[in-house]
C-alpha cells in the first residue's frame, strides 16, 4: 500500500491526487523531493508540514506543474479534478492554472503586483474576466471580510495592511471557484491575532466552496488547528501521513515525535527537546533512511536501505522500519517549574522609562529585573518590546528616565557607558544571519569582543574554544566563517560571543524566531543550562507565549508601550489579569482543539 491509497474511498476524479512525485535539480539531477504521494478530497485541507529545506514548497508548487528556476519535475502524476497536470501543453496548463487550481503565496506584499490596481488583479482571477462587475468583485471582498470594497478595488497593494493583503490573496484564490488551492505558509508574516482570523476564514471557505486545499507550513500548531489530513516531510520525503488526529496524537515516526517534543505549549511549561544536527543536503543523502543520522531509535539496518511505507492503521502511513517496535517519547511537563527566590537587590531597575522612535513608543516603564532569573518580555509586534531591550543595551539612545545596573545609573547610549557596564550586559540579536561579521572567523569575532571588553587581559585560544564548547560548538567552529555554519550554529556562536565577555545579563531579542522549531528547542535547552550552571540572568524578548512558558521564570506583558501585567510566568499565564495577556493566550496557536468554524456568511469583518 502506498500513500496514494490513503484516500482510496475517494472518486478518482475529485480533488487533488499526487502519485510518486519527484522534483530534481536541473543540472545535477539530485532529487529535491521524491516519492511524494497524497490525495485531498473536496472540502478538506491537507497540512504539508516540514522544516526549512524539507521540500514542502517545492512539492506544493508541483501541484500547479510549476518548478522554481533551477528545478524540474522529473516524474510522477498530479491530478486536479481528474486532469493530469504534468503532461499538458502550455495553453492547456494556463486554462488549469488560475481556474481549477489557484495559489496563495507566502508573502502577498511581494506577490501582488505593485503597479496594478487591485480591481485589475482581482478581475484577472475570475474564470471570465469579462464577468468582473462591481457587484461580483465586491462580493468576493465581502466574502473574505474586507469592508469598503469600492475603496480597496481602486487601491494599489501598498496602500493596504499585511492582513488585508493576505485576505485579498485569499479572495483571489477563491475567485474562480477552483477545485483545488495551494496555500504556501500564507500566515507567516501575520501577527497571531490576524493569523487566527485568516485560518478561520480559510476553513470556512474551504467547506463552503467544497475546495480541496493543500496548506504548506512549518508551524505544527497552525496545521493542527486547521488541517483534516497531515503529511510530515523530511529531507524531500513524506515520512508520516494520516488524519490530523492520527499523526499528531500517535506520532509514530521518530521525526514527528521529535518535532512535537520541540513545540512549546502556551498552556503548560514543557521540557523542550531539540534535534541536534541538520537534515542532509539533497546531493548527499545517505542510501538508507535520511533521518537515521539524527534518530535515537536508528539501528544499522536503517542506514543501509531506504525504509518502506508501513500502514499503522487505515489511512495512517509511516515511512519507518522501526515503526511500532519502540515507543516514541512524548513531551513532558516541567516537573517543578524553576522558582528560585528572587535575590534581595534586583540586578536591573527601570523607572519612569520613556522611549521615542519619532513618536513615543515606551511610556513610563517601571520594573525590577531580578538576578539569576530569566525574565520574558512579550507583546504583539509594535508593542515596544525590542525597543525596551535596546534601551537597556544602549543600542537605542532616545530615552528618558532611569535604568540602573546594581544601583548605578546607565547612560543612554553604549558609547557613553563604561567598559565594565558594557561587559556586564550582552546582546544577542534576532537574526543570526546578520549578527556575525561574515569576513571574520567565529574565533576572531569572539576575540575582538572579549579583548575589547575585558581590558588588556589577553584571551587565550583555549578560552575561546571553551566558550564555543559551552554553547555546544566543536573546536573547528573557531576557524569557520559564519557562511559555513547553519543558522542554529550561528546563533550559538553569537551567544558564545556574549559569554566570552563574562556578562551578568544576556539580552536575547527574539533569538529563536528565525530558526526552525527543532533548532529553537536546542537553543532553549542551551539557555536553560547556562542559566543553571552560571547563574546567568536573561532578558528574553519573544512573541511566542508557549516558548516563554518553557524558559522564563518571570514575565512582562507589554501593550502599546506600557506594561500591562508582570509577575511569575506560570502565575501570570495561568490566570491572566490583564485583557491583553488573556488575548495573547487565547490567540496563541495550540494543538488542543481544532478551529471552531464560523458560519460562512458571518465572517467577522476586519477592522481597517
Amino acid at each position: 500500500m502506498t500513500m496514494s491509497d490513503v484516500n482510496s474511498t475517494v472518486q478518482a476524479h475529485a480533488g487533488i491526487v499526487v502519485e510518486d512525485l519527484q522534483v530534481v535539480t536541473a543540472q545535477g539531477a539530485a532529487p529535491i523531493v521524491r516519492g511524494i504521494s497524497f490525495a485531498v478530497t473536496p472540502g478538506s485541507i491537507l497540512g504539508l508540514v516540514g522544516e526549512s529545506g524539507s521540500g514542502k514548497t517545492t512539492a506544493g508548487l508541483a501541484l500547479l506543474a510549476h518548478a522554481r528556476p533551477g528545478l524540474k519535475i522529473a516524474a510522477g502524476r498530479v491530478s486536479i479534478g481528474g486532469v493530469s497536470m504534468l503532461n499538458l501543453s502550455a495553453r492547456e496548463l494556463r486554462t488549469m492554472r488560475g481556474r481549477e487550481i489557484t495559489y496563495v503565496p507566502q508573502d502577498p506584499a511581494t506577490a501582488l503586483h505593485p503597479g496594478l490596481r487591485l480591481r485589475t488583479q482581482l478581475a484577472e482571477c475570475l474564470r471570465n474576466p469579462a464577468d468582473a462587475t462591481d457587484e461580483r468583485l465586491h462580493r468576493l471582498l465581502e466574502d473574505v471580510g474586507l469592508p469598503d470594497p469600492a475603496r480597496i478595488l481602486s487601491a494599489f497593494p501598498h496602500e493596504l495592511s499585511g492582513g488585508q493583503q493576505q485576505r485579498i490573496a485569499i479572495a483571489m484564490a477563491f475567485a474562480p471557484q477552483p477545485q483545488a488551492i495551494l496555500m504556501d505558509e500564507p500566515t507567516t508574516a501575520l501577527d497571531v491575532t490576524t493569523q487566527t482570523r485568516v485560518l478561520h476564514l480559510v476553513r470556512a471557505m474551504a467547506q463552503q466552496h467544497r475546495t480541496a486545499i493543500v496548506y504548506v507550513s512549518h508551524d505544527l500548531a497552525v496545521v493542527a488547528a486547521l488541517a483534516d489530513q497531515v503529511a510530515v516531510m523530511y529531507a524531500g520525503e513524506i515520512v508520516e501521513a494520516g488524519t490530523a488526529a492520527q499523526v499528531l496524537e500517535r506520532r509514530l515516526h521518530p521525526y514527528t515525535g521529535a518535532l512535537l517534543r520541540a513545540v512549546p505549549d502556551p498552556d503548560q511549561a514543557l521540557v523542550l527537546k531539540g534535534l541536534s544536527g541538520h537534515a542532509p543536503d539533497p546531493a548527499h543523502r545517505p542510501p538508507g533512511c535520511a533521518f537515521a543520522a539524527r534518530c535515537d531509535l536508528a539501528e544499522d539496518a536503517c542506514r543501509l536501505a531506504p525504509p518502506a511505507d508501513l500502514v499503522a492503521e487505515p489511512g495512517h502511513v509511516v515511512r519507518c522500519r522501526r515503526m511500532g517496535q519502540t515507543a516514541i517519547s512524548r513531551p513532558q511537563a516541567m516537573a517543578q517549574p524553576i522558582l528560585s527566590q528572587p535575590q534581595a537587590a534586583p540586578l536591573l531597575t527601570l523607572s519612569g522609562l520613556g522611549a521615542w522612535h519619532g513618536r513615543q513608543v515606551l511610556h513610563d516603564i517601571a520594573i525590577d529585573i531580578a538576578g539569576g532569573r530569566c525574565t520574558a518580555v512579550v507583546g504583539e509586534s509594535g508593542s515596544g518590546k525590542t525597543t525596551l531591550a535596546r534601551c537597556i543595551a544602549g543600542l537605542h539612545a532616545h530615552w528618558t528616565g532611569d535604568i540602573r545596573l546594581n544601583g548605578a545609573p546607565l547612560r543612554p547610549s553604549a558609547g557613553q557607558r563604561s567598559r565594565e557596564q558594557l561587559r556586564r550586559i550582552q546582546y544577542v540579536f534576532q537574526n543570526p544571519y546578520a549578527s556575525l561579521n561574515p569576513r571574520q572567523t567565529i574565533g576572531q569575532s569572539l576575540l575582538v569582543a572579549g579583548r575589547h571588553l575585558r581590558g588588556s587581559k589577553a584571551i587565550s585560544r583555549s578560552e575561546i574554544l571553551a566558550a564555543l564548547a559551552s554553547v555546544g560548538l566543536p573546536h573547528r567552529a573557531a576557524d569557520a566563517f559564519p557562511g559555513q555554519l547553519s543558522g542554529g550554529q550561528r546563533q550559538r556562536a553569537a551567544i558564545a560571543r556574549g559569554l566570552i565577555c563574562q556578562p551578568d545579563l544576556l539580552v536575547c531579542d527574539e533569538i529563536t524566531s528565525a530558526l526552525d522549531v527543532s533548532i529553537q528547542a536546542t537553543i532553549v535547552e542551551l539557555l536553560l543550562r547556562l542559566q543553571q550552571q552560571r547563574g546567568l540572568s536573561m532578558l528574553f524578548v519573544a512573541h511566542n507565549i508557549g516558548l516563554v512558558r518553557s524558559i522564563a521564570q518571570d514575565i512582562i506583558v507589554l501593550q502599546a508601550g506600557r506594561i500591562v501585567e508582570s509577575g511569575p510566568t506560570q502565575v501570570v499565564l495561568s490566570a491572566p489579569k490583564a485583557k491583553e495577556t488573556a488575548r495573547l493566550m487565547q490567540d496563541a496557536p495550540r494543538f488542543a482543539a481544532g478551529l471552531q468554524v464560523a458560519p460562512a456568511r458571518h465572517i467577522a469583518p476586519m477592522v481597517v
Partner: protein
Amino acid sequence: MTGSGLAAMLLRRLLLGLLTLLLVSLVVFAATQLLPGDVATAILGRTATPARIAALRAALHLNHAPLAQYGLWILGLLHGDLGNSLVTGKPILSDIAGRLYNSSLLVIITAVISLPIAVIAGLAAAVRHDRATDIALSTVALALSALPEFVIGIALIIVSSLAAPHVLPMVSLVQPGHSPLQTPRVLVLPLLTLTLVVFPYVFRMMRGSMIDVLESDYIEMARLKGVSPHRLLIVHALPSALPPTIQAIALTLAYLAGGIVVVEYVFGYAGIGEGIVSAVGTRDLPEIQDFTLILAAVYVCLNIIADVCTVLLTPKLRTRRA
C-alpha cells in the same frame, strides 16, 4: 498623488535644478580665477599689445572685483547677452545658435535610431535570459561600453575607408548657415558612432530591470494565475521594468551632452561639443563659460525629466502622501 502634489514635486526638482546650475556657474567662474597671474596676459600671451590686453580686460569685466565680474556675466546671460568671442570678436549668440541646432540634430536622430534598438534588444535578452541571444548581446554591450567614444569613431572611419573608400566622408564638414540635413552623408558615421556609444547603457538597464521583474514574486504569481504570456509581458512585466530604463535613457541623453564633445571633434562636425574643444584650444574664455553652462543646463533639464517620468510611472511613488 494629487495634481498639486505632483506640481509641488516638479517645483522642488526645478528649484534643485536651478540651485545646481547656480553652483555649476560658480564652479565655471571659479575655474577662470585659477588662471595664474593676469588673466588677460595669460590668454593673449606676453607679446600682446597693451591695447589688446586692455580691451580684453574690459570684455571680461576684469577691472571689477571677482563677485562683480560674476554678477555681470550672469546678468548678461539673463539678458541674452552671451558676450563676444575673443577669437572672432563676433557675438557668441550667433555662433551658438547654429552649433546648438547641429548638435541637437545629432542627438535627436541618435535617440530615435538607437533607443528603440537598445530597448528591444534588452527585452529580447531578458526574455531569453542566459541563452545564446542574451550572452551574445550582453558580451557585445560589455565590450562597447568599455571603449572610449573616439576609439569607436576612428574604428568606424578606418572600416569605412578600407571597406568602401570614398563612399562616406571621413570628416563631416557642415557649411555655416546650412543644415547637415542638406548633406545627409556627413551624418552617417557620427550617428553610427553615437548609436554604438549609447546602446550598451540603455540595453543593460532594460535587460537588468526586466530580468529583475521577470524573477519577481508577482510575475511568478501571475504565471500561476494562468495569465497569457502576451498579457504577462505587456501588462504585468513591462510597466514595472520601464521606469529604471526611462531614467537610464534620460541619463544617457544627458551623458550625450558630454559624449558629443569627442565625437563631434573626431568628425570635425560643427556642433557645440566641437565648439568647446576649439574654444579650450584657443582659450576663448567667454565661449568656454557660455558653452559649458549651456551643456550643464541641458544636463540638468534631462535629469529632471528622468525623475518626473520615474515618478509618473511608479504608483508607489505617485500615490505616496506628501
